[in-house]
């Protein structure tokens, strides 16, 4: 039982990271039906911005995170303007291939500019402490990741449900043309969606940097793919689905490694993707009609 609870703790911190990345996937998909494969790499850029603001500017972890979120929000908007907006009325496959192109561009530009080697996140930024809670070991890093992920998700829910911008996002996702007729600026709304999604990815990037201590230019690929599975699992385009999907993926992976075999962990993760697509392509939270953001 103790081991099981310990595994759940391991799974929750992993799941929080997946969930934050999955949110960006799902928001962008909800609004323009595009799987933004560059999303994992935006997370990587966020991790690097966080790393440099900590190591060069000497800022604390909160400032570093904020800085990374702002930089990536701008980056997300720029990518959308340059790469995706001109293709908005072309086929979906064209936009998808462009997204893969943007992903490779970000990865290899970073390698070109900063080198392929991993960098070590300075450990003194976030001194490690471990607490023993009834026999389970919980570290302050795990608490930090879980709590800040939940806070960010609550803020996101507030923006989508309670603000005018959120209303505009929901409107655009239901029907773009009708939204234009109602006086909503579609371009602006899409830009904001990219900004928010990228900022969440950047936060996840900084968390990964703190949690695992190292960052490298290709670090976004695997978490990006897993988060994509999480988004599909929850129902792509549905915000609460991405959160639940992320946590489910994290816990599932830890339980497979913990009670099955670590060798099958990734096979199970991607097996879930296949099963979901066969049995319930709209995901756990998916309905045939309904609101999407």
């Amino acid at each position: 039982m103790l081991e099981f609870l310990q595994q759940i703790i391991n799974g929750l911190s992993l799941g929080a990271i997946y969930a934050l990345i999955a949110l960006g996937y799902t928001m962008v998909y909800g609004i323009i039906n595009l799987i933004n494969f560059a999303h994992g790499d935006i997370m990587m850029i966020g991790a690097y911005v966080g790393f440099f603001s900590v190591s060069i500017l000497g800022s604390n972890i909160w400032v570093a995170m904020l800085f990374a979120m702002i930089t990536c929000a701008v980056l997300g908007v720029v990518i959308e303007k340059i790469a995706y907006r001109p293709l908005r009325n072309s086929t979906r496959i064209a936009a998808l291939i462009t997204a893969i192109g943007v992903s490779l561009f970000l990865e290899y530009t970073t390698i070109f500019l900063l080198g392929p080697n991993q960098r070590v996140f300075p450990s003194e930024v976030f001194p490690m402490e471990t607490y023993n809670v009834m026999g389970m070991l919980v570290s302050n890093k795990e608490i930090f990741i879980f709590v800040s992920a939940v806070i960010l998700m609550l803020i996101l829910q507030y923006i989508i449900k309670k603000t005018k911008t959120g209303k505009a996002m929901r409107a655009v996702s239901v029907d773009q043309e009708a939204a234009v007729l109602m006086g909503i600026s579609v371009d602006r709304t899409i830009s904001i969606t990219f900004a928010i999604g990228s900022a969440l990815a950047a936060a996840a990037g900084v968390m990964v940097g703190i949690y695992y201590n190292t960052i490298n230019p290709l670090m976004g690929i695997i978490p990006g793919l897993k988060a994509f599975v999480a988004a599909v699992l929850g129902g792509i385009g549905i915000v609460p689905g991405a959160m639940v999907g992320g946590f489910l993926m994290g816990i599932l992976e830890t339980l497979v490694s913990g009670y099955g075999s670590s060798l099958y962990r990734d096979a199970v993760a991607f097996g879930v993707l296949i099963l979901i697509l066969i049995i319930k392509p709209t995901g756990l939270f998916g309905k045939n009609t309904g609101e999407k953001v």
Partner: protein
Amino acid sequence: MKKSLTKVTMLVLMLFVLGIVAGCGGNAGDGGGDAADIPIGINCELSGGVASYGTNAYSGAELAVEQINAAGGVLGKQLRIVKRDNKSLAEEAASVSASMVEEGIVAQVGPLVSSNVQACTPILMESQIPLIAPAATATNVTVNKNDKTFDYIFRVCFIDPFQGTLMARFAKDDLNAKTAVIYKDTSSDYAKGLAEYFKKTFEADGGTILTEEGFVKDDRDFKATLTKIKTKNPDFIYVPGYYQEVAPLLKQARELGITIPIGGGDGWDSPDMLKVAGPAALNNSFFTNHYSSQDKDPKIVSFVDTFKAKYNKEPDAFAALGYDSVQILVQAIKDAGEADPVKIKDALANIKDFEGITGKMTIDEQHNPVKAGVILEYKDGNQVMNTRIQP
């Protein structure tokens, strides 16, 4: 239109011919130097993914050449380094090898990585020039798939199976481990090779492998599997892999309260281990390596001091292996009596009890050196030599 096209074609052709003629002239000039010195090719990973391996090995080789030349050279001739960067790419390694053969080298030292050595093998076999690989540890570097030895390919490092065997004996005899868990990098043949031989030896000596777990390259989260390993309560965990994954793995293991000894192979040897995992997490962990710069053997102490004075850095295993590659080549040239590639090859195959920095070596029939290995231990962030184990 047609006329101008022909003109352009002519011009291109002329330039091309000119280029060839110029090229020939250059080669003839290089080839003419054979009486004055002995050209040896050094084909290293000086840039790209594993640049640190190649740069250090080159420094070691360069130091050896300088020392030999200062002492009067070999058979009255000076050694001349023909230096090439293969950019850590297999195709580049092959093409620079071909260009060095054109220049008339008598032997090639390098590349460092097994796959890059394998890319050079056909060229050197065909042109009958011996190759000495400083650090290629994969078994199939010196033998083809039918287990037939490549006549011209040699190495000065021990091979993967040996490291697994070494660590198993150390765990059994020195750490008194009765049970062990293997947690290996399943995406690397290197790690799988180490794990296989660790298991074989550990079980043959009466130990029990409780379970085998795996991770893959670029994994960063090991907690789930480590939590599971903890409940099995083994005496020892064997983690063959590369430092990028092993460092966070060790850190997470200690965070979960796993205090038992953890061991691995030479893939652990990087300054990043300390930076990522921190000194506390590394305590009570051990790995097999080719040599230790802390060894008190006077030969090693003098090598380390000279190297530090010249390059202002600590010589790692690659530097020592690069140094030994040149030294063993020089021994072979002396034994052969002349700098003829075919005779050097025969002499290399017959090397016995050669005293290198990385230990005493005898080349066996598969062109692998029979030599000792060392076990290094992390103590408060320093690599400390624990013991030397003879084969």
